[in-house]
């Protein structure tokens, strides 16, 4: 008999990148020793550029000092993937889950993250697709609407996905996003004809798509203020 699986979802609002990273590290450590169940962080970031483990900073097209003038931060991380931008009106999901418990490898996990975003897009009549060979992420035609960058350590995931609801796309002009030079970045706002609800609604829908694709039976929603969380 299959044991019912619950997903605990923390709605965090807008969180500074480093604070979110520190929180993920703590939760991943707790998840590894089964102190917490599979947990999903749902949040947004203030304007932030991030690099992955390969440190591909040649894809940053402006000096770091200029980023500060724009009001953006830059962070180097241990996740996979290239350079990207996070900012307001971009939905971020950071799943802290045990892949070993559900028998998924990196490839299948990432495919499911792509499907989470393609399913959400289809709710708004947008035909998006993932599983492009050598170009992980979610695309509408040749325009990228969702990005993925993941870390798997001791079978526990951290980092995750970023889905463009309606971010300021000009921020992407200062990088070669994801290291892909000849493709554009897009958003749900740009691609759909429908009127969009508030971000919170879309983020909840994204979480529901995730939970369904990963076979969770129940979602336990928690609203958290990250400043109050003991780091």
């Amino acid at each position, binding site marked *: 008999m299959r044991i019912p699986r619950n997903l605990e979802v923390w709605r965090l609002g807008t969180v500074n990148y480093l604070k979110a990273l520190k929180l993920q590290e703590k939760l991943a450590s707790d998840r590894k020793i089964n102190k917490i169940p599979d947990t999903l962080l749902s949040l947004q970031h203030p304007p932030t550029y991030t690099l992955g483990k390969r440190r591909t900073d040649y894809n940053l097209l402006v000096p770091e000092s200029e980023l500060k003038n724009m009001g953006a931060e830059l962070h180097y991380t241990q996740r996979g993937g290239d350079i990207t931008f996070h900012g307001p009106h971009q939905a971020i999901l950071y799943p802290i889950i045990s892949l070993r418990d559900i*028998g998924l490898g990196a490839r299948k996990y*990432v495919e499911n993250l792509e499907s989470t975003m393609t399913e959400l897009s289809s709710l708004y009549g947008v035909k998006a697709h993932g599983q492009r060979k050598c170009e992980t992420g979610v695309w509408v035609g040749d325009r990228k609407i969702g990005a993925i960058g993941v870390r*798997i350590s*001791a079978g526990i995931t951290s980092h995750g996905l970023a889905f463009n609801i309606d971010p300021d796309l000009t921020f992407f002009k200062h990088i070669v996003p994801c290291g892909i030079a000849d493709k554009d970045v897009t958003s749900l706002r740009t691609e759909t004809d429908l009127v969009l609800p508030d971000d919170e609604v879309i983020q909840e829908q994204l979480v529901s798509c995730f939970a369904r694709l990963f076979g969770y039976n129940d979602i336990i929603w928690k609203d958290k203020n990250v400043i109050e969380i003991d780091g």
Partner: protein
Amino acid sequence: MALRIWASSTANALRLSSATRPHFSPLSRCFSSVLDGLKYAHSHEWVKHEGHVATIGITDHAQDHLGEVVFVELPDIGGSVTKGTGFGAVESVKATSDVNSPICGEIVEVNTNLKETPGLINSSPYEKGWMIKVKPSNPSELEALMGPKEYTKFCEEEDGGH
């Protein structure tokens, strides 16, 4: 697929038994090869112990579940590895995955070819895609690892049970 044909002909040439399932079986989930003479960890690394040196890499099952490897991070020679702890990482499909050492020991060699050709881990996980060579500090740790039959069963259960 070419990889399976290559793997089984290589296995035949080396007179190694392979637990590869027939690839025409639609119900089979385990298409990965498992080699005799190696020991295996639950986190899908293999160890080959020859004399005073143990070679470590990741299994065919692991590389298949990772996807195409585009980047490999390896430790420095002279460092040490601890059983069950990460010594490096691989990147595939925008995911970095830690690679763990099945045993404790001192690193005596690392596979620098993986810097230029990380895909060797996919194309040759048990030979050209080896990652590090270690002088085991406690050879009895190898006894605690899985043998090929046990590892094959472990993979089947992990893939099939969800």
